[in-house]
Protein backbone atom coordinates (compact mmCIF):
# COMPACT_ATOMS: atom_id res chain seq x y z
CA UNK A 1 0.00 0.00 0.00
CA UNK A 2 1.63 3.22 -1.12
CA UNK A 3 0.92 6.02 1.31
CA UNK A 4 1.13 8.67 -1.41
CA UNK A 5 -1.25 6.79 -3.69
CA UNK A 6 -3.80 6.35 -0.91
CA UNK A 7 -3.52 9.98 0.24
CA UNK A 8 -3.97 11.22 -3.34
CA UNK A 9 -6.63 8.69 -4.34
CA UNK A 10 -9.01 9.13 -1.40
CA UNK A 11 -9.66 12.90 -1.71
CA UNK A 12 -9.54 12.90 -5.53
CA UNK A 13 -11.99 9.99 -5.83
CA UNK A 14 -14.28 11.46 -3.17
CA UNK A 15 -14.39 14.94 -4.74
CA UNK A 16 -15.14 13.53 -8.22
CA UNK A 17 -17.72 11.10 -6.85
CA UNK A 18 -19.52 13.63 -4.64
CA UNK A 19 -19.76 16.08 -7.56
CA UNK A 20 -21.54 13.55 -9.76
CA UNK A 21 -23.52 11.86 -6.97
CA UNK A 22 -26.24 14.50 -7.37
CA UNK A 23 -26.91 13.05 -10.84
CA UNK A 24 -26.77 9.32 -10.02
CA UNK A 25 -25.33 8.26 -6.64
CA UNK A 26 -24.62 4.64 -7.61
CA UNK A 27 -22.70 5.35 -10.85
CA UNK A 28 -20.94 8.29 -9.14
CA UNK A 29 -19.81 5.99 -6.29
CA UNK A 30 -18.24 3.54 -8.72
CA UNK A 31 -16.69 6.37 -10.75
CA UNK A 32 -15.17 7.98 -7.64
CA UNK A 33 -13.89 4.69 -6.19
CA UNK A 34 -12.53 3.72 -9.62
CA UNK A 35 -10.55 6.97 -9.96
CA UNK A 36 -9.36 6.74 -6.32
CA UNK A 37 -8.17 3.14 -6.69
CA UNK A 38 -6.58 4.04 -10.04
CA UNK A 39 -4.47 6.62 -8.19
CA UNK A 40 -3.95 4.32 -5.20
CA UNK A 41 -2.39 1.70 -7.51
CA UNK A 42 -2.44 -1.18 -5.05
CA UNK A 43 -4.91 -3.73 -3.75
CA UNK A 44 -4.71 -2.47 -0.17
CA UNK A 45 -5.13 1.22 -0.95
CA UNK A 46 -7.84 0.40 -3.54
CA UNK A 47 -9.79 -1.55 -0.92
CA UNK A 48 -9.29 1.14 1.73
CA UNK A 49 -10.40 3.86 -0.70
CA UNK A 50 -13.46 1.76 -1.62
CA UNK A 51 -14.34 1.32 2.05
CA UNK A 52 -13.99 4.98 2.99
CA UNK A 53 -15.07 6.74 -0.21
CA UNK A 54 -18.18 4.61 -1.01
CA UNK A 55 -20.38 5.80 1.90
CA UNK A 56 -19.04 9.37 1.55
CA UNK A 57 -20.03 9.50 -2.13
CA UNK A 58 -23.18 7.38 -2.05
CA UNK A 59 -24.74 9.30 0.85
CA UNK A 60 -23.54 12.72 -0.37
CA UNK A 61 -26.99 13.77 -1.73
CA UNK A 62 -28.32 13.06 1.79
CA UNK A 63 -25.72 14.76 3.98
CA UNK A 64 -24.07 17.46 1.82
CA UNK A 65 -27.17 19.72 1.58
CA UNK A 66 -27.56 19.34 5.37
CA UNK A 67 -24.00 20.59 6.07
CA UNK A 68 -24.81 24.33 5.77
CA UNK A 69 -27.82 23.78 8.06
CA UNK A 70 -25.63 22.00 10.64
CA UNK A 71 -22.81 24.58 10.32
CA UNK A 72 -25.22 27.49 10.74
CA UNK A 73 -26.53 25.81 13.89
CA UNK A 74 -30.09 26.42 12.77
CA UNK A 75 -31.33 22.94 13.53
CA UNK A 76 -30.97 20.40 16.26
CA UNK A 77 -27.85 18.46 15.23
CA UNK A 78 -28.87 15.37 17.22
CA UNK A 79 -32.04 14.96 15.15
CA UNK A 80 -30.11 15.36 11.91
CA UNK A 81 -27.63 12.73 13.10
CA UNK A 82 -30.52 10.35 13.84
CA UNK A 83 -31.78 10.97 10.31
CA UNK A 84 -28.33 10.30 8.81
CA UNK A 85 -27.96 7.14 10.90
CA UNK A 86 -31.23 5.99 9.35
CA UNK A 87 -29.70 6.56 5.91
CA UNK A 88 -26.48 4.73 6.77
CA UNK A 89 -28.30 1.81 8.35
CA UNK A 90 -29.68 0.14 5.29
CA UNK A 91 -29.03 -2.91 3.19
CA UNK A 92 -28.51 -0.89 -0.01
CA UNK A 93 -25.76 1.22 1.64
CA UNK A 94 -24.00 -1.95 2.85
CA UNK A 95 -24.20 -3.52 -0.63
CA UNK A 96 -22.79 -0.35 -2.22
CA UNK A 97 -19.92 -0.20 0.32
CA UNK A 98 -19.03 -3.88 -0.25
CA UNK A 99 -19.18 -3.43 -4.03
CA UNK A 100 -17.00 -0.31 -3.67
CA UNK A 101 -14.38 -2.28 -1.68
CA UNK A 102 -14.36 -5.10 -4.27
CA UNK A 103 -14.12 -2.61 -7.15
CA UNK A 104 -11.25 -0.79 -5.38
CA UNK A 105 -9.35 -4.06 -4.82
CA UNK A 106 -9.89 -5.18 -8.45
CA UNK A 107 -8.74 -1.84 -9.92
CA UNK A 108 -5.79 -1.74 -7.46
CA UNK A 109 -4.83 -5.26 -8.55
CA UNK A 110 -5.05 -4.33 -12.26
CA UNK A 111 -2.91 -1.22 -11.64
CA UNK A 112 -0.36 -3.34 -9.76
CA UNK A 113 -0.19 -5.79 -12.69
CA UNK A 114 0.25 -2.94 -15.17
CA UNK A 115 2.99 -1.42 -12.98
CA UNK A 116 4.91 -4.72 -12.68
CA UNK A 117 4.57 -5.31 -16.44
CA UNK A 118 5.96 -1.81 -17.07
CA UNK A 119 8.89 -2.52 -14.72
CA UNK A 120 9.66 -5.75 -16.59
CA UNK A 121 9.60 -3.90 -19.93
CA UNK A 122 11.87 -1.18 -18.53
CA UNK A 123 14.18 -3.87 -17.21
CA UNK A 124 14.53 -5.44 -20.67
CA UNK A 125 14.91 -2.13 -22.50
CA UNK A 126 17.33 -0.36 -20.09
CA UNK A 127 21.00 -0.57 -21.39
CA UNK A 128 22.42 -0.08 -17.89
CA UNK A 129 20.35 -2.96 -16.49
CA UNK A 130 21.37 -5.06 -19.52
CA UNK A 131 25.04 -4.35 -18.71
CA UNK A 132 24.43 -5.18 -15.04
CA UNK A 133 22.78 -8.49 -15.99
CA UNK A 134 25.66 -9.39 -18.31
CA UNK A 135 28.27 -8.56 -15.62
CA UNK A 136 26.35 -10.66 -13.10
CA UNK A 137 26.21 -13.57 -15.50
CA UNK A 138 29.97 -13.21 -16.21
CA UNK A 139 30.78 -13.10 -12.49
CA UNK A 140 28.72 -16.23 -11.86
CA UNK A 141 30.49 -17.99 -14.76
CA UNK A 142 33.93 -17.00 -13.46
CA UNK A 143 33.04 -18.18 -9.95
CA UNK A 144 31.95 -21.51 -11.36
CA UNK A 145 35.24 -21.89 -13.18
Amino acid at each position, binding site marked *: MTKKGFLAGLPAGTI*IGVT*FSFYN*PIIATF*LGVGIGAFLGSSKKSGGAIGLLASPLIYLAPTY*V*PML*PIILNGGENILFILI*MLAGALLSL*STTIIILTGVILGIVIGHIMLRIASK*TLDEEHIESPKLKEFDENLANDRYKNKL
Partner: protein
Amino acid sequence: MRIWKVVLVVLLSVVVSLVLGVQCGEYHSGVSYPSGTMYVIELKYDSVESSNRTVNIENLTVHAEVTLTSKDIDLNYVGWGFYVNGTGRKYENGSMVEEREMDYPIPPILLAVKKNTRELHPTDLLIDLIRGKYEDAEILEILSGAYTAHPVEDIFMYNIFYIEQGRGPGDKIIFGFVNSSANEEKTKEFEISYEKEIELPCGKLNTLVIEIDADTMKFLEDLIEDELNISEASYIRFYYEKNTGWLVKAEAYGEAMGKNDENVTKVMTVNLDVVLKKPGSIPIGGNRGLNNILGLPKFTMETAATILIVAIIYFKVARRRA
Protein backbone atom coordinates in the same frame (compact mmCIF):
# COMPACT_ATOMS: atom_id res chain seq x y z
CA MET B 1 -0.72 4.49 -24.54
CA ARG B 2 -3.77 3.12 -26.34
CA ILE B 3 -5.32 1.62 -23.19
CA TRP B 4 -5.16 4.98 -21.40
CA LYS B 5 -6.97 6.65 -24.26
CA VAL B 6 -9.71 4.01 -24.00
CA VAL B 7 -9.93 4.51 -20.19
CA LEU B 8 -10.15 8.28 -20.66
CA VAL B 9 -12.89 8.01 -23.34
CA VAL B 10 -14.91 5.56 -21.18
CA LEU B 11 -14.67 7.80 -18.09
CA LEU B 12 -15.59 10.95 -20.00
CA SER B 13 -18.58 9.22 -21.63
CA VAL B 14 -19.78 8.11 -18.16
CA VAL B 15 -19.52 11.72 -16.97
CA VAL B 16 -21.31 13.13 -20.04
CA SER B 17 -24.11 10.54 -19.85
CA LEU B 18 -24.56 11.29 -16.15
CA VAL B 19 -24.97 15.00 -16.78
CA LEU B 20 -27.07 14.70 -19.95
CA GLY B 21 -29.22 11.86 -18.56
CA VAL B 22 -30.81 14.36 -16.20
CA GLN B 23 -32.95 15.98 -18.86
CA CYS B 24 -34.20 12.68 -20.33
CA GLY B 25 -37.43 11.01 -19.24
CA GLU B 26 -40.78 12.25 -18.10
CA TYR B 27 -39.50 13.54 -14.77
CA HIS B 28 -36.44 15.61 -13.96
CA SER B 29 -34.01 13.15 -12.31
CA GLY B 30 -33.20 15.67 -9.57
CA VAL B 31 -36.73 15.58 -8.14
CA SER B 32 -36.31 12.02 -6.83
CA TYR B 33 -33.47 13.11 -4.54
CA PRO B 34 -34.50 16.14 -2.47
CA SER B 35 -32.06 16.84 0.34
CA GLY B 36 -31.74 19.98 2.41
CA THR B 37 -34.87 21.24 0.63
CA MET B 38 -36.58 23.45 3.17
CA TYR B 39 -40.15 24.76 3.29
CA VAL B 40 -41.62 27.28 5.69
CA ILE B 41 -45.16 26.44 6.74
CA GLU B 42 -47.58 28.93 8.25
CA LEU B 43 -50.92 27.59 9.37
CA LYS B 44 -53.73 29.63 10.93
CA TYR B 45 -56.95 28.08 12.10
CA ASP B 46 -59.79 30.15 13.58
CA SER B 47 -63.05 28.86 14.89
CA VAL B 48 -65.94 30.90 16.28
CA GLU B 49 -68.71 29.10 18.12
CA SER B 50 -71.70 31.25 18.91
CA SER B 51 -75.05 30.60 20.49
CA ASN B 52 -77.68 32.97 21.91
CA ARG B 53 -75.75 33.29 25.17
CA THR B 54 -72.04 32.65 24.51
CA VAL B 55 -69.32 33.25 21.95
CA ASN B 56 -66.22 31.04 22.02
CA ILE B 57 -63.23 31.92 19.85
CA GLU B 58 -60.45 29.43 19.29
CA ASN B 59 -57.26 30.12 17.31
CA LEU B 60 -54.43 27.83 16.37
CA THR B 61 -51.18 28.97 14.76
CA VAL B 62 -48.35 26.79 13.55
CA HIS B 63 -45.03 28.07 12.26
CA ALA B 64 -42.76 25.25 11.09
CA GLU B 65 -39.81 24.52 8.88
CA VAL B 66 -39.81 21.19 7.06
CA THR B 67 -36.56 19.88 5.60
CA LEU B 68 -36.60 17.00 3.13
CA THR B 69 -33.88 14.39 2.88
CA SER B 70 -33.51 11.32 0.68
CA LYS B 71 -31.43 8.24 -0.07
CA ASP B 72 -31.63 5.16 -2.30
CA ILE B 73 -33.54 2.22 -0.81
CA ASP B 74 -32.83 -0.01 -3.81
CA LEU B 75 -32.35 0.39 -7.56
CA ASN B 76 -35.98 1.49 -8.14
CA TYR B 77 -36.89 3.34 -4.96
CA VAL B 78 -35.60 6.41 -3.14
CA GLY B 79 -36.45 6.79 0.54
CA TRP B 80 -37.72 10.21 1.62
CA GLY B 81 -37.31 11.59 5.11
CA PHE B 82 -38.52 14.79 6.79
CA TYR B 83 -37.34 16.93 9.62
CA VAL B 84 -40.07 19.07 11.13
CA ASN B 85 -39.05 21.88 13.44
CA GLY B 86 -41.45 24.53 14.67
CA THR B 87 -43.87 25.91 17.20
CA GLY B 88 -47.61 25.54 17.60
CA ARG B 89 -49.76 27.86 19.73
CA LYS B 90 -53.35 27.52 20.81
CA TYR B 91 -55.44 30.51 21.94
CA GLU B 92 -58.87 30.53 23.53
CA ASN B 93 -60.77 33.82 23.56
CA GLY B 94 -57.54 35.72 22.97
CA SER B 95 -55.34 34.13 25.65
CA MET B 96 -52.72 31.47 24.93
CA VAL B 97 -53.59 28.15 26.53
CA GLU B 98 -50.96 25.90 25.00
CA GLU B 99 -47.58 26.20 23.31
CA ARG B 100 -45.84 23.22 21.80
CA GLU B 101 -42.34 22.92 20.33
CA MET B 102 -42.03 20.45 17.47
CA ASP B 103 -38.85 18.52 16.65
CA TYR B 104 -39.73 15.49 14.61
CA PRO B 105 -37.06 13.69 12.56
CA ILE B 106 -38.46 11.13 10.12
CA PRO B 107 -35.52 9.13 8.64
CA PRO B 108 -35.64 8.28 4.90
CA ILE B 109 -36.77 4.70 5.55
CA LEU B 110 -40.52 5.15 6.07
CA LEU B 111 -41.62 6.56 2.69
CA ALA B 112 -40.21 5.68 -0.71
CA VAL B 113 -40.58 7.31 -4.12
CA LYS B 114 -40.50 5.06 -7.17
CA LYS B 115 -37.92 6.56 -9.56
CA ASN B 116 -39.32 8.20 -12.73
CA THR B 117 -42.86 8.12 -11.36
CA ARG B 118 -44.89 10.15 -8.85
CA GLU B 119 -45.70 7.07 -6.78
CA LEU B 120 -45.00 7.59 -3.07
CA HIS B 121 -45.08 4.23 -1.26
CA PRO B 122 -45.02 3.48 2.45
CA THR B 123 -42.36 0.99 3.54
CA ASP B 124 -43.19 -2.20 5.44
CA LEU B 125 -41.56 -0.56 8.49
CA LEU B 126 -44.11 2.29 8.41
CA ILE B 127 -46.99 -0.18 8.03
CA ASP B 128 -45.63 -2.16 11.01
CA LEU B 129 -45.27 1.06 13.05
CA ILE B 130 -48.87 2.06 12.24
CA ARG B 131 -50.08 -1.42 13.19
CA GLY B 132 -48.22 -1.07 16.52
CA LYS B 133 -45.80 -3.94 15.92
CA TYR B 134 -42.93 -2.08 17.59
CA GLU B 135 -44.83 -0.77 20.61
CA ASP B 136 -43.04 -3.07 23.08
CA ALA B 137 -40.09 -3.90 20.85
CA GLU B 138 -36.47 -3.48 21.80
CA ILE B 139 -34.19 -1.06 19.96
CA LEU B 140 -32.34 -3.88 18.12
CA GLU B 141 -35.61 -5.20 16.71
CA ILE B 142 -36.55 -1.73 15.40
CA LEU B 143 -33.04 -1.30 13.94
CA SER B 144 -33.26 -4.64 12.13
CA GLY B 145 -36.61 -3.51 10.68
CA ALA B 146 -35.01 -0.23 9.58
CA TYR B 147 -32.06 -2.08 8.04
CA THR B 148 -34.16 -4.19 5.70
CA ALA B 149 -37.08 -1.78 5.14
CA HIS B 150 -38.53 -2.04 1.64
CA PRO B 151 -41.48 -0.34 -0.08
CA VAL B 152 -44.98 -1.82 -0.15
CA GLU B 153 -45.67 -1.77 -3.90
CA ASP B 154 -49.45 -2.22 -3.72
CA ILE B 155 -50.09 1.00 -1.81
CA PHE B 156 -49.12 4.44 -3.04
CA MET B 157 -50.23 8.05 -3.28
CA TYR B 158 -49.41 10.48 -6.07
CA ASN B 159 -46.58 12.69 -4.85
CA ILE B 160 -47.64 16.34 -4.58
CA PHE B 161 -44.03 17.60 -4.47
CA TYR B 162 -43.44 17.38 -8.23
CA ILE B 163 -45.12 16.98 -11.61
CA GLU B 164 -43.92 15.85 -15.05
CA GLN B 165 -41.50 17.98 -17.10
CA GLY B 166 -42.66 19.95 -20.14
CA ARG B 167 -46.26 20.45 -18.97
CA GLY B 168 -48.25 23.60 -19.60
CA PRO B 169 -51.65 25.22 -18.97
CA GLY B 170 -54.50 22.84 -19.85
CA ASP B 171 -52.53 19.67 -19.08
CA LYS B 172 -53.95 17.38 -16.43
CA ILE B 173 -52.12 16.14 -13.33
CA ILE B 174 -53.36 13.23 -11.26
CA PHE B 175 -53.57 13.32 -7.45
CA GLY B 176 -54.88 10.81 -4.95
CA PHE B 177 -54.35 7.44 -3.37
CA VAL B 178 -54.27 3.84 -4.71
CA ASN B 179 -54.41 0.57 -2.80
CA SER B 180 -54.38 -2.11 -5.47
CA SER B 181 -54.42 -5.03 -3.01
CA ALA B 182 -57.79 -3.79 -1.70
CA ASN B 183 -58.97 -2.64 -5.17
CA GLU B 184 -59.30 0.87 -3.80
CA GLU B 185 -58.55 3.94 -5.92
CA LYS B 186 -59.37 7.49 -4.93
CA THR B 187 -57.80 9.71 -7.55
CA LYS B 188 -58.69 12.90 -9.40
CA GLU B 189 -57.15 14.76 -12.29
CA PHE B 190 -56.57 18.50 -11.95
CA GLU B 191 -55.85 20.92 -14.76
CA ILE B 192 -52.87 23.28 -14.79
CA SER B 193 -54.72 26.60 -14.71
CA TYR B 194 -52.10 29.15 -15.76
CA GLU B 195 -48.43 30.20 -15.72
CA LYS B 196 -47.17 32.80 -13.27
CA GLU B 197 -43.86 34.40 -12.33
CA ILE B 198 -43.46 34.54 -8.56
CA GLU B 199 -40.86 35.96 -6.19
CA LEU B 200 -39.52 33.59 -3.51
CA PRO B 201 -36.57 33.61 -1.06
CA CYS B 202 -34.62 31.58 -3.66
CA GLY B 203 -35.31 34.09 -6.48
CA LYS B 204 -37.81 34.87 -9.25
CA LEU B 205 -39.31 31.71 -10.71
CA ASN B 206 -41.57 30.79 -13.62
CA THR B 207 -44.29 28.54 -12.26
CA LEU B 208 -47.25 26.46 -13.37
CA VAL B 209 -50.28 26.93 -11.13
CA ILE B 210 -52.87 24.29 -10.31
CA GLU B 211 -55.85 26.05 -8.81
CA ILE B 212 -58.50 24.00 -7.07
CA ASP B 213 -61.69 25.93 -6.37
CA ALA B 214 -64.46 25.18 -3.89
CA ASP B 215 -66.49 23.11 -6.39
CA THR B 216 -63.55 20.92 -7.33
CA MET B 217 -62.65 20.59 -3.66
CA LYS B 218 -65.68 18.37 -3.19
CA PHE B 219 -63.38 15.43 -4.02
CA LEU B 220 -62.00 15.85 -0.50
CA GLU B 221 -65.38 14.70 0.80
CA ASP B 222 -64.95 11.41 -1.09
CA LEU B 223 -61.44 11.11 0.22
CA ILE B 224 -62.30 11.54 3.90
CA GLU B 225 -65.78 10.03 3.45
CA ASP B 226 -67.44 12.89 5.34
CA GLU B 227 -69.46 15.94 4.38
CA LEU B 228 -67.65 19.29 4.37
CA ASN B 229 -69.61 22.51 4.10
CA ILE B 230 -66.92 24.29 2.13
CA SER B 231 -67.74 27.90 1.23
CA GLU B 232 -67.37 29.39 -2.27
CA ALA B 233 -64.37 31.48 -1.18
CA SER B 234 -62.21 28.41 -0.48
CA TYR B 235 -59.28 27.50 -2.73
CA ILE B 236 -56.02 25.54 -2.94
CA ARG B 237 -53.17 26.64 -5.22
CA PHE B 238 -50.04 24.66 -6.05
CA TYR B 239 -47.12 26.43 -7.74
CA TYR B 240 -44.68 24.15 -9.59
CA GLU B 241 -41.40 25.43 -11.05
CA LYS B 242 -41.66 25.15 -14.83
CA ASN B 243 -38.22 23.66 -15.52
CA THR B 244 -38.09 20.89 -12.89
CA GLY B 245 -41.80 20.55 -12.04
CA TRP B 246 -40.94 20.92 -8.33
CA LEU B 247 -43.42 22.38 -5.83
CA VAL B 248 -42.17 25.82 -4.78
CA LYS B 249 -45.27 27.23 -3.14
CA ALA B 250 -48.70 26.15 -1.97
CA GLU B 251 -51.48 28.19 -0.48
CA ALA B 252 -54.85 27.16 0.80
CA TYR B 253 -57.81 28.98 2.23
CA GLY B 254 -60.89 27.29 3.54
CA GLU B 255 -64.11 28.47 5.13
CA ALA B 256 -66.80 26.24 6.54
CA MET B 257 -69.95 26.90 8.52
CA GLY B 258 -72.25 24.59 10.45
CA LYS B 259 -75.08 24.59 12.96
CA ASN B 260 -75.74 21.80 15.45
CA ASP B 261 -78.96 20.64 17.16
CA GLU B 262 -78.42 22.97 20.14
CA ASN B 263 -78.55 25.99 17.81
CA VAL B 264 -74.78 26.62 18.12
CA THR B 265 -73.29 28.09 14.98
CA LYS B 266 -69.66 27.27 14.19
CA VAL B 267 -67.60 29.18 11.62
CA MET B 268 -64.16 27.85 10.79
CA THR B 269 -61.43 29.34 8.62
CA VAL B 270 -58.12 27.76 7.70
CA ASN B 271 -55.23 29.58 6.06
CA LEU B 272 -52.15 27.64 4.98
CA ASP B 273 -49.00 28.96 3.30
CA VAL B 274 -46.14 26.70 2.27
CA VAL B 275 -43.12 28.45 0.73
CA LEU B 276 -39.83 26.98 -0.48
CA LYS B 277 -37.05 28.63 1.53
CA LYS B 278 -33.98 26.62 0.42
CA PRO B 279 -33.92 24.40 -2.71
CA GLY B 280 -31.09 22.20 -1.33
CA SER B 281 -30.27 19.51 -3.90
CA ILE B 282 -33.26 20.34 -6.14
CA PRO B 283 -31.96 22.09 -9.25
CA ILE B 284 -34.29 25.11 -9.04
CA GLY B 285 -33.22 27.63 -11.68
CA GLY B 286 -31.10 25.02 -13.48
CA ASN B 287 -28.26 24.87 -10.94
CA ARG B 288 -27.81 21.71 -8.90
CA GLY B 289 -25.81 19.78 -6.36
CA LEU B 290 -22.64 21.27 -4.97
CA ASN B 291 -22.89 24.38 -7.21
CA ASN B 292 -26.24 25.19 -5.64
CA ILE B 293 -24.96 24.68 -2.10
CA LEU B 294 -21.67 26.54 -2.63
CA GLY B 295 -23.33 29.31 -4.68
CA LEU B 296 -21.21 28.62 -7.76
CA PRO B 297 -22.25 29.16 -11.41
CA LYS B 298 -23.78 26.28 -13.40
CA PHE B 299 -21.57 23.22 -14.08
CA THR B 300 -18.53 24.66 -12.20
CA MET B 301 -17.92 21.58 -10.03
CA GLU B 302 -18.69 19.22 -12.91
CA THR B 303 -16.10 20.97 -15.14
CA ALA B 304 -13.53 20.95 -12.32
CA ALA B 305 -14.12 17.22 -11.67
CA THR B 306 -13.79 16.41 -15.40
CA ILE B 307 -10.50 18.36 -15.57
CA LEU B 308 -9.33 16.42 -12.50
CA ILE B 309 -10.15 13.09 -14.21
CA VAL B 310 -8.20 14.10 -17.35
CA ALA B 311 -5.30 15.34 -15.19
CA ILE B 312 -5.15 12.06 -13.23
CA ILE B 313 -5.07 9.97 -16.43
CA TYR B 314 -2.43 12.31 -17.95
CA PHE B 315 -0.36 12.19 -14.74
CA LYS B 316 -0.41 8.37 -14.73
CA VAL B 317 0.50 8.11 -18.44
CA ALA B 318 3.21 10.78 -18.19
CA ARG B 319 4.79 9.06 -15.17
CA ARG B 320 4.80 5.73 -17.00
CA ARG B 321 6.50 7.21 -20.02
CA ALA B 322 9.08 9.03 -17.89
